[in-house]
């Protein structure tokens, strides 16, 4: 059962990745160029999922949209991990006022709505994929810091850290050789779950026009485009919605599956 979850997650994630990679070389139709003669076609041949209000093939736009999803996910999760994990480790290893300051600062960021940050960045720098990545990444730092801190506290309480200290291993050596390898699994799980959240957030921001602008297709701005034809062509909104749902589901399943797979206490006895 747990294994099935992990595999389902892997399959869905792989589907997104493969689609994004293929779209770099080939899409059925041009995902950008407007074709006035074939607006709002229903699903059929050769436009498998139909066309949108600009006469562009929806399947092609979905494929290109997968690229944005992955790019935003990777950069924002990477950003959050690169800042959040060392901060969490610092807080967990040092304790005392350092811990307080880092974690309370995290609470402040956590309490600050990511949407507000995105609006702020978009209004200063203009809405783009990059502002969305930064907004989502910064908003995700506290989650990574918390996970890293909790893991660090657990590792620091173990006897092998005490043994390392009694051998004169430096704080840095303990962080590098003992803490980091042992919290890597939980950080990996957080990355997977964070990826799902990033996809959702990017879609929301694109939908609101606070991220990637037209004509570059993203699932979020496709949803926005579809909205005005909701009665004339309801299926047009279904496809990007489905893509978002499946990708989010995929990364969540992967995260849950990994958590169970990596936690020996939850691992089923073979």
């Amino acid at each position, binding site marked *: 059962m747990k294994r099935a979850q992990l595999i389902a997650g892997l399959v869905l994630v792989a589907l997104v990745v493969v689609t994004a990679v293929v779209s770099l070389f080939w899409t059925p139709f041009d995902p950008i160029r407007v074709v006035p003669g074939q607006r709002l076609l229903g699903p059929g041949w050769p436009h498998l999922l139909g066309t949108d209000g600009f006469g562009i093939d929806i399947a092609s736009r979905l494929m290109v949209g997968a690229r944005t999803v992955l790019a935003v996910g990777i950069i924002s999760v990477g950003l959050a991990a690169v800042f959040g994990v060392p901060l969490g480790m610092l807080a967990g290893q040092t304790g005392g006022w350092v811990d307080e300051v880092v974690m309370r600062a995290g609470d402040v960021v956590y309490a600050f709505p990511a949407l507000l940050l995105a609006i702020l960045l978009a209004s200063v720098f203009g809405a783009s994929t990059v502002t969305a990545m930064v907004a989502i990444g910064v908003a995700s730092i506290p989650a990574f810091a918390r996970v890293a801190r909790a893991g660090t506290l657990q590792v620091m309480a173990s006897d*092998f850290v005490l*043994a390392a200290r*009694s*051998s004169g*291993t430096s704080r840095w050596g303990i962080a590098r050789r003992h803490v980091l390898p*042992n919290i890597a699994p939980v950080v990996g799980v957080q990355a997977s779950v964070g990826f799902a959240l990033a996809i959702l957030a990017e879609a929301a921001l694109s939908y609101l026009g606070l991220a990637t602008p037209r004509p570059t297709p993203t699932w979020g701005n496709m949803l926005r485009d579809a909205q005005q034809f909701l009665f004339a062509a309801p299926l047009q909104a279904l496809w990007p919605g489905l893509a978002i749902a499946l990708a989010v589901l995929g990364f969540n399943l992967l995260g849950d599956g990994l958590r169970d797979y990596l936690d020996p206490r939850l691992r089923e006895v073979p």
Partner: protein
Amino acid sequence: MAEPRADHLYRAEGLTRRYRNGGRDVLALDAVDLSLDRGHRLGIVGESGSGKSTLVRLLAGLDHPSAGRVWFEGTEITDLPEKRLGFLRASVQMVFQDPRSSLNPRMRVSDIITEPLRSRLVRRQLTDRVDQQRRLAEVLAAVDLPADAGGRYPHEFSGGQRQRIAIARALAPDPEVLIADEPVSALDVSVRAQVLNLLTDLVAARGLTLIVVSHDLMVVRHLCDQLAVMRQGRIIERGATSSVYADPQTGYTRALLEAVPRIRAEGR
């Protein structure tokens, strides 16, 4: 207060440690005085919560006392910053209770054992450069582990073997003092005797000073020539193992000794 004589390996005066636990003060160690000379084997016994582990952690420089002072080889270590504790780190090594928790599951055995040799603090203390591979082979042989054990991970070994790995790590920097905190109580009864005999042999062969914490009087009797009985953060009895066994001075020690199950030869 007189300076301690340099010939005491360890000396502690008025050692006190308080913890704050949920707003409540817990006195783990209450003004303990202790001295230990080179080459002796001291057993510290007492029930759980009597402060034995707290005491050895202070002696190993892993914790700071709330009050009191500790000298090692005539140098006060009580408030020395970590970077000046190199001589202590190189000379005092610990073996912990449960090797499942004292060995990093994500490190190879070779890296675990040579970790003390790689710390800059300890390396500075060693007079000549240590060939890590040679030392690894030497300590693996000393604890009767196969020479190829270094390439494997802790989970590939049994409990007794893992405790041998932990002992090998403690021996790697060629320490003078070995502190063993309940060294066999997490092990299967069947391998306890082996590990105890190994410790006895190593201590004798290397002339180590040994400090053993245990709640098990049999273990201490087997390993130690001196005994300290602890209760509620104090040492209530101290003396040669044989004389404490023969003539316990406090009712508590007597009760402890009487609580040891004996196998009688009745009915044979």
